[in-house]
């Protein structure tokens, strides 16, 4: 199972506590994980990726294994530790504004 850590407001929106666990079919990439996340929690559509362009929203970042993966290609494989469920993919909101 893939683990995803959501920021506070998206946990509230999706009505989940703690990490989200997802079954991902095929290669584990940013795109496949986010597709699985949005399929299970449709209310998250548009909150992480733009609804039209599917680009990462500018004030969000993707981290895993203490690395910033935000600028990796959407179809690049995520680290093995994420694919195995040992480490979560962390979706982090920028610390900006009030």
């Amino acid at each position, binding site marked *: 199972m893939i683990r995803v850590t959501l920021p506070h407001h998206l946990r509230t929106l999706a009505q989940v506590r703690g990490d989200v666990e997802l079954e991902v079919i095929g290669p584990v990439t940013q795109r496949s994980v986010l597709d699985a996340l949005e399929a299970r929690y449709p209310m998250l559509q548009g909150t992480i990726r733009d609804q039209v362009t599917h680009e990462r929203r500018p*004030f969000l970042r993707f981290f895993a294994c203490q690395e910033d993966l935000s600028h990796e290609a959407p179809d690049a494989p995520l680290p093995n530790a994420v694919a195995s469920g040992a480490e979560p993919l962390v979706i982090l909101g920028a610390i900006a504004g009030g």
Partner: protein
Amino acid sequence: MSTVRVLVGTRKGAFVLTSDGKREKWDISGPHFAGWEIYHVKGSPVDPNRLYASQSSGWFGQLIQRSNDGGKNWEPVGNKFAYEGVPGTHQWYDGTPHPWEFKRVWHLEPSLTDPDTVYAGVEDAAIFRTTDGGQNWQELPGLRGHGSGPKWQPGAGGMCLHTIILDPSNPKRIYIAISAAGAFRTDDGGVTWKPINRGLRSEFIPDPNAEVGHCVHHVAMHRSRPDVLFMQKHWDVMRSDDAGESWHEVSGNLPTDFGFAIDVHAHEPETIYVVPIKSDSEHFVPEGKLRVFRSRTGGNEWEPLTKGLPQSDCYINVLRDAMAVDSLDKCGVYFGTSGGQVYASADAGDSWSAIVRDLPAVLSVEVQTLA
């Protein structure tokens, strides 16, 4: 006895304020969607328990929430606002072309006849419609496709479509307003639109007959006289008696004619309310006094309403969608401030009291009068 429900959108959530017809004691629920900007909350006129809210955030974008029980419970509905076709460009602040980009929903206007149909005014300026209770939104592209689109330019708050008025006597007629393009009207249900800005004067526009470019802040109408419109422009309070074909100024004796909010008494179509703001560079009430000004003559002659409002050391603003009226007798008038107060008058403005004083900055106020 009647119930009054006040729907308040703030910088950090939505609040629902409820009272009986006396409008003395209020129950306050919220924050709903805590921490999110709520630009607007509005109920369906035909099903008052059906509410729609625009929820947005710089981090997470736009959501639309719907309630079927008067705001007790909410569910997120569709939030995909995709412009029709190639979006094209409008002017940026410096006059260069800038691509149309969706940012947020400023205003939600439920249909007068169908609780599942709602219009949404968005930034960058466009109008969308849902006919399935908010699940899917389609642009009415004739507005943005009006030939003047490439000349539209954002106001300081962004290039927002902030006002949508549905004509109760003519389901094909809709008025909208955009900062800083101006006002537009459709007479064919939103297929084609025409600018209705003749008579507006703006210092920063060299051509006094410019078709577009006016920074209209808000427009109000009384449902019994849908051809009579009142406008708070950037500067100037304006009036049209011919469905926007022409405008004339009715600022009269106002201490300043800059402002955002404007509304009409529920039972007296010539009684209108504004909250003058000092200037476009000082967005607070003049002289440290919070004064609503009322005209009982459709403009030009204005009286300050001060009873119960702070008359010293007050430096708040009242935004364009943050004033509303109920339909009780006497008419209730409500407005919210950048300081987080929501003021109410149960006597058409003669006296005021704060329903609540310490909310986040208020972005919008709507009122429902329930049987």
